[in-house]
């Protein structure tokens, strides 16, 4: 039978063991996540620079786009809903991507929509009565693909009609969520690792305070002060 003195000691040992285990795994998770997300992080950091510097000559893509227009015969279709008709047309034309709707369909004009994916924008005008589709395809170069990857969510905030409708857009959007969540976990884990380093605590507080002040000024304070 354990004495009363042994009991709290073993509880303390278990707690210490759990803490040690947490610290080891916290460190591992920090660099495991960093290594797994490496290419995603490079993509979003680098394309963030490209988006903020649209005048960088080397990364121009819109002037170098390649456009082509073709006409295709369409089989008759029975679908009624716009999205089903668009999918039918896309299936017949052998294309896939995120469907973007115009603000409104012309009353007696062709059935119109756009199919987007990183690197290609396809405008489709389908005369469903005559069974004819006019397809204007715009191909972007590698820089264009990188640009679009940064912003390709399929869910514009201000457009209720255009909702994510391509499975790969959903997968990419979830990847963006995962990268963001991973970076948040890495940041929080790094605070724990830093705080354990007593010798670097003060300098770390200075570095963190500089970051918090400069970033916080933009997030909140400037909004009220300026």
């Amino acid at each position, binding site marked *: 039978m354990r004495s009363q003195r042994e009991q709290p000691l073993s509880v303390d040992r278990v707690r210490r063991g759990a803490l040690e285990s947490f610290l080891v795994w916290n460190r*591992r998770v920090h*660099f*495991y996540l*960093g*290594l*797994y997300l*490496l*290419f*995603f*992080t*490079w993509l979003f*950091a*680098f394309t*963030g620079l490209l*988006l*903020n510097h*649209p*005048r960088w000559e080397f990364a121009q893509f819109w002037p170098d786009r390649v456009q082509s227009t073709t006409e295709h015969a369409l089989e008759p279709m029975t679908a009624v809903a716009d999205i089903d008709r668009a999918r039918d047309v896309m299936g017949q034309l052998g294309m896939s991507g995120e469907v973007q709707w115009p603000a409104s369909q012309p009353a007696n004009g062709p059935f119109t929509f756009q199919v987007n*994916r*990183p*690197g*290609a924008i396809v405008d489709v005008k389908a005369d469903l009565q005559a069974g004819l589709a006019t397809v204007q395809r715009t191909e972007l170069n590698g820089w264009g*693909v990188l640009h679009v*990857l940064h912003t*390709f*969510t399929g*869910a*514009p*905030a*201000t457009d209720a009609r255009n909702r994510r409708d391509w499975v*790969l857009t959903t*997968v990419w*959007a979830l*990847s*963006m*969520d995962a*990268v*963001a969540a991973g*970076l*948040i976990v890495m*940041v929080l884990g*790094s*605070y724990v690792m*830093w705080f354990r380093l007593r010798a*670097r605590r003060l*300098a*770390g507080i200075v*570095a*963190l305070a500089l*970051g*918090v002040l*400069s*970033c*916080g000024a*933009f*997030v*909140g304070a*400037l*909004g009220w002060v*300026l």
Partner: protein
Amino acid sequence: MRRLYLITRDLHLYVGLFLSPFVLVFSVSVFYLVHGLAQRPAPNQTAPSRIVTNLVVPPGLGGMQGRARVDALRPVLEQAGVTGEVDFVRHLPGEHRLIVPVRLPNRDTVVSLDYEQRTATITSRVHSLGDALVYLHKMPGPHNVDLRGNSRLMRWWRVLADVTAYLTLFITVSGIYLWVALRAERRVGLMLVVAGALTFGGLVYALAA
């Protein structure tokens, strides 16, 4: 070699700590952006407004274009007590009026300036923290390049957004160096790099091919 390792480790730590609030801002705003949660509605007609009179308006303002017009508008906006980044300017020549949306991360203001009567009607709308984060995430961005950076706020944020991207690249490279030094973790780490590369490459190929 040992000295390089120690310097890299300290730089990774301190640069990372400085960078961490920015990473949190960009990461948290991703959830709003990806799921279309940031609506940021413009100020509407029912929003409270105020009228400012007797403004000193630079001559020829109505005929100006682009950045020159925004720069000329800046003192007018200051007289009206409006600060922030001019988003764009819409000219209604028939009404001698300029419509000027001015943005701060957490506030949108629309200034309707009658440059002949020298009066301005000012309407504001305050936005949530989420909207402010999304605004910062998207700014300065690729649109309206000639106008962007017309406020001190945006000029500074442009610098900090760039610094965030460059320091993130530095943090990843220094992180790789520090990981390589950990012999015991090399195998698992390499497997994760390869797994990440395959996931990334596969997704990009499927999306763009």
